[in-house]
């Protein structure tokens, strides 16, 4: 496939036309896989011998934590595309994704806190992972606030893209700084995806379905919200032209 043909979808009108057809399918797939994954995980998996039934929280905690980071990465990529190629759809997709990422971060933090209470005996610990997610949440808030604060859409797109780039570097620095600052309680290996062999198959397959569900849900929401942003943008452009007569 010719790579240049891909850029055609960066035309707002073409984007709306294409996503019109794709969106229902993605939405249905997302709902189905979320229901399958969560039902499978909640009703048909055994308890962990150490963590008891709290292991079921994994089906929400791990996918949302993954998405919290991946959404930011997606915003970084689309910001770069905006800076380099100046496709408006790209900048608007980043804007559309940010609230989703923020909600994912909140879910990861909330489920983490609820899970931590019985396991570690505390709702909140200044553990490196938890702290990093809190900082990530602050980055999302700042990014969204900057979008909201600026009237001119192109200016807002430029500024938020640069903030996203600079923020990514500093988020990474914070991650290392926080690790250095406190070694932490969070079990890295047994539940994280980097060492998948440590998660028994009974937990692993429903988890995979849940992750797929979260990814699909994110795609569906991003498409929907990007369409909204494109329309809102066109609306503002038309109104501005009306005013100028």
């Amino acid at each position, binding site marked *: 496939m010719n790579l240049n043909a891909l850029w055609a979808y960066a*035309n*707002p*009108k073409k984007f709306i036309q294409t996503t019109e057809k794709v969106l229902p399918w993605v939405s249905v797939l997302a709902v189905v896989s979320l229901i399958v994954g969560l039902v499978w995980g909640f009703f048909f998996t055994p308890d962990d011998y150490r963590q008891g039934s709290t292991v079921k929280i994994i089906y929400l905690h791990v996918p949302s934590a993954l998405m919290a980071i991946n959404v930011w990465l997606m915003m970084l990529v689309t910001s770069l595309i905006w800076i380099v190629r100046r496709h*408006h759809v790209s900048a608007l997709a980043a804007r559309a994704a940010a609230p989703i990422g923020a909600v994912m971060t909140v879910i990861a933090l909330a489920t983490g806190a609820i899970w931590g209470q019985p396991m570690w005996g505390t709702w909140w610990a200044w553990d490196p992972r938890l702290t990093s997610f809190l900082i990530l949440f602050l980055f999302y808030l700042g990014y969204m606030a900057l979008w909201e604060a600026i009237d001119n859409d192109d200016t807002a797109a430029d500024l938020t893209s640069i903030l996203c780039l600079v923020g990514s570097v500093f988020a990474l620095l914070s991650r290392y700084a926080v690790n250095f600052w406190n070694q932490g309680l969070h079990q890295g290996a047994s539940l994280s995806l980097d060492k998948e062999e440590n998660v028994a198959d009974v937990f692993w397959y429903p988890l995979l379905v849940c992750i797929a569900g979260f990814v699909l849900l994110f795609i569906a929401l991003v498409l929907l919200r990007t369409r909204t942003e494109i329309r809102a943008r066109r609306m*503002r*452009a*038309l109104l*501005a*032209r009306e005013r*100028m007569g």
Partner: protein
Amino acid sequence: MGLNVSNLTIARGGVRVLEGVSFTLDPGHAIVLRGPNGIGKTTLLRTVAGLQPPVSGRVETDPDSIVYAGHSDGIKATLSVAENLQFWAQVFGETDIETAIAAFQLERLVTRPAGGLSAGQKRRLGLARLLVTGRPVWILDEPTVSLDAEAVAMFAEAVRAHLRRGGSALIATHIELGLPEAYVLEVGPYRAVAAEVDDFDEAFL
């Protein structure tokens, strides 16, 4: 070193305001831009001065030959008149501020803090800044706001002297400056034509 603008299209807030603007400004000449409010004169001047990129078209000039003066003069209230001018002279690598002070009759005000000047005096100080920069192409947006008749004459004389030295000026204004030798450019005919509503693309219009 002149200024050559060809087929320039400019936008304000994402909406095209002027398109196909072309003109040439040669050394020793002045162009006065005229047109109703909101037509895009300020945007045009800012684009020519390099503060914002054009939608399409070209501005050919040496960026180191241009000095821009907008609606506000960049005057610091706590610095004296002489300190304000000295600062801008240093930024542009010049030293002489006496000529500028004399041209706008600021002699009696040099030690006064700029915050204590009247609006017209501030404007004169802002215009005197043009002289201390030593740059040949002046780009002026409504330079005569809050000036009285005498000060307008002062300004016209300063522009005329500047043109005699081989400089040039691009001025947006509503009033008669008393510069009969200046070429008047009406920007009204360049007003951008709105595109078809249905056919929307990257510009969302």
